[in-house]
């Protein structure tokens, strides 16, 4: 039996474990002890025999596991780690760590979890007290006392350094300490209990704790599961818990006995009146858009926001009406708002809109001088996973929405009308219209002096084949140019 003592550092264990492994010493032949922790035999450090094997190769995953577990307070941590190391290298169980239900692997995983929880709780429950300010640098100085279950000061110091870089602080625990002065993070040995000063601010915090508690939903067990009693002694708020719990029932009974208060009408506040106006508009339900065709654009927009003539209003976010100068020379009509347009509430802001912008610029058309709108004013889609997939509107939906479009057309009264895609063209020209055969300038309609029908830019986006797309883009540009060529 070889007795090996570790100075509590992972590096010391790693070096000794490597030596033992190369010397072919079985786990059952090693007695591990920790310096400074009481050992059973106190055998001191045996001399490790010379190597007979090549240096071992172990997965990174094991190194990180061993590093974490080395901070555990359980005295058998070194032996368990060595057993797994042996079995992975000499024992032919290279993928041992993957077998999470192996008793030793499971035990180590549990130890790692305990460390992680302890670290997390230390991040949470350390409480700094201000002790003063550095007379030279003016930096505020703080200190804290904390009692973790394991030797985790080295695992947590970095967190505090990165969070509290701008202040000087020191944390003391029974198994280690750390301090930061703005330049260097120092780790030191543990200390016996340190007294921390009281602060006036504690009373503010305790007042906050008392007030944020809702006595009507007492769940003491849930609180204790996350904040076990062992942490209470260093928390300034914990001595309130007992009385908050015992008073809660009376407080709730008191609320139940209060006489209910009637509603107060709210008076003539101008902002409330503004809200009531908004509500009145929201409460309007428009089922017959036909009734409103001749109204001015502002009114159309207001009424269209309340349109329930087809079921699309239920799932869409809102109505997306046209945008642009009321006296625009050119009006452009697409199919319906897409995902982005639905979110923002404006037409042609998504990918198809961006493509359209590019071609308008190429054709010499200034978008800001055009009135842009859609044949259907609500986004039609089906949710699929994280996405909302566009659906073509039905003939019925298009025809129910048509009065809004016609209303816009009558008000803008453009010289040039550009119809993008079959939905727009069929809505205004007729159900039999075929883009593929009748694209370009359309004669003989009442709609505008010049009417041009072409594809929708989203059609261009869908084309996969490079040469097809180039050809279609050329034709699209030609149609746009035809719209504005005198």
């Amino acid at each position, binding site marked *: 039996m070889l007795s090996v003592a570790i100075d509590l550092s992972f590096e010391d264990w790693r070096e000794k474990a490597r030596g033992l492994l190369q010397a072919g010493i079985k786990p059952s032949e090693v007695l591990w002890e920790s310096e400074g922790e009481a050992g059973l035999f106190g055998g001191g450090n045996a001399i490790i025999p010379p190597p007979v094997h090549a240096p071992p190769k172990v997965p990174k995953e094991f190194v990180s596991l061993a590093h974490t577990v080395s901070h555990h307070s359980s005295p058998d941590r070194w032996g368990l780690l060595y057993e797994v190391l042996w079995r992975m290298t000499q024992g032919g169980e290279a993928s041992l760590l993957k077998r999470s239900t192996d008793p030793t692997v499971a035990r180590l995983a549990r130890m790692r979890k305990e460390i992680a929880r302890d670290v997390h709780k230390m991040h949470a429950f350390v409480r700094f007290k201000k002790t003063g300010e550095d007379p030279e640098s003016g930096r505020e100085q703080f200190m804290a006392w904390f009692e973790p279950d394991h030797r985790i000061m080295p695992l947590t110091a970095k967190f505090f350094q990165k969070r509290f870089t701008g202040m000087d602080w020191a944390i003391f625990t029974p198994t280690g300490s750390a301090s930061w002065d703005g330049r260097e993070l120092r780790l030191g040995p543990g200390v016996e209990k340190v007294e921390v000063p009281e602060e006036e601010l504690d009373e*503010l915090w305790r007042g906050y704790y008392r007030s944020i508690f809702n006595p009507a939903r007492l769940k003491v067990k849930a609180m204790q599961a996350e904040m076990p009693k062992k942490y209470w002694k260093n928390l300034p708020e914990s001595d309130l818990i007992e009385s908050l719990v015992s008073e809660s029932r009376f407080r709730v009974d008191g609320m139940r006995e209060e006489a209910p208060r009637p*509603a107060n009408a709210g008076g003539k506040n101008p*902002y409330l009146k503004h809200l009531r106006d908004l509500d009145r508009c929201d409460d309007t339900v428009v089922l017959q858009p036909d009734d409103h065709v001749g109204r001015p654009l502002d009114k159309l927009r207001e009424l269209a926001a309340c349109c329930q003539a087809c079921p699309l209003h239920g799932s869409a976010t809102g109505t997306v009406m046209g945008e642009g100068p009321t006296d625009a020379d050119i009006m452009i009509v697409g199919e319906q708002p897409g995902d982005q347009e639905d979110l*923002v509430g404006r037409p042609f802001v998504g990918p198809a809109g961006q493509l359209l912008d590019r071609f308008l610029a190429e054709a010499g058309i200034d978008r800001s001088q055009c009135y842009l709108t859609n044949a259907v004013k609500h986004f039609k889609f089906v949710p699929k996973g994280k996405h909302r997939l566009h659906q073509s509107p039905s003939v019925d939906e298009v025809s129910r929405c048509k009065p809004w479009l016609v209303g816009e057309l009558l008000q803008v009264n453009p010289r040039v009308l550009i119809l993008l895609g079959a939905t727009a063209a069929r809505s205004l020209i007729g159900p039999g219209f075929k883009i593929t055969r009748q694209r370009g300038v359309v004669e003989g309609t009442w709609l505008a002096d010049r009417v041009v029908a072409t594809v929708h830019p989203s059609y261009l986006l869908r084309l996969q084949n490079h040469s097809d797309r180039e050809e279609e883009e050329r034709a699209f540009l030609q149609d746009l140019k035809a719209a504005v060529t005198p």
Partner: protein
Amino acid sequence: MDLQRKLEILADAAKYDASCASSGANRRNSSNGKGVGSTGGAGICHSYAPDGRCISLLKVLLTNRCLYDCHYCINRRSSNVQRAAFTPAEVVKLTLDFYKRNYIEGLFLSSGIIRSADHTMEQVIEVARSLREDHDFRGYLHLKTIPEASVDLIEKAGQYADRISINIELPKEQSLKTFAPEKSLKRTRIAMGKIRHRVENAAEVRRERQGRRSPEGKFATGQSTQVIVGADDSTDQVFLKRSHDLYSNYRLRRVYYSAFSPIPEPSAILPLKAPPLVREHRLYQADWLMRFYGFEAGEIVSDERPNLALDLDPKLSWALRNRQFFPVDLNRAEKLLLYRVPGLGVRNADRILGIRRYGKIRVQDLIRLRVSLKKVLPFVITADHHPSSRELDHDNLRARFAPPPEQMELHLNTPGKGSPLGQVME
């Protein structure tokens, strides 16, 4: 009024907001700055109140004066509650003082509506601005926003905050009309749409610039909301459908369900009976099933059964109604089917997928994974276990899981063993 009293009034006024998350912010720390603070990855709960809720953020209202008259709210204009208002500078100082002592992860700031939506937002934004710009504060900021506030102000709030939120409060427009007449579901959804668009646009800019800062990339990383359960007559189906709407259309990070609890200054319009807290818990479980377990709302609740069972968790309840899918062979079944086994969470199901590549799953493995055997065994096959078909078809199977009725007793030293509330947390 002294600061202590103000803090007590304005924390008391804020406690009905369940949101406590301090996670999901962009990673940052104070190592290269003058100020304090860091965020990143998981949030930290710095304390717990006896209501079981975590205390992660300083959660306060800027003021509890309010023009609105929401009947479930203690701060409504008809209430006689004592009113107070912080100055922005007071909130800034409290936040920094608490933060430097490691009491909190940051600030959750909301406010009663004073004067107008825009005026209120400007006050809230001033606190955020001062923390970020005057004090280089890098902790977590959650700002409540108001749907009627102007787009510019929501943009500003989003630039300072990690999380912004608008509470929908109630799941139906009709209920809002009755209980919160100044609020509108329609306006809230429109505002949420704009926020989602901005959140995604900023995330894309950050990806493209790979960490290099730009004004377009500076925006909150997500939005959340809260609904109050049991104030109106909405069924669980209505709640879950609304949550589905908000998750899929506006990609909310979280929908918080808050069981309506009795408040001082009760309104004459609202029913005084509080719903069982367990209903809130069941809604959270159902919400989880929809988001992480591949369940559709229609599988959990339906027109025939619009409410969740209170005595069983929704997954077990589903399994008992759909016994034809069981037993599931843990050594063969695909992932999504493992997710449907009562008592198996996503993590344990994933572990089982990992373990079974190296050997057969046995009951011993389930014990080591700390799975509840009582719950799992009737529904699964392992190398050494096969439930009898009689057991699975037995009429009494449901009764085996339902908790026995017991007296409710809660005390600090004997915390509700077997009580309905004790069950909720297990």
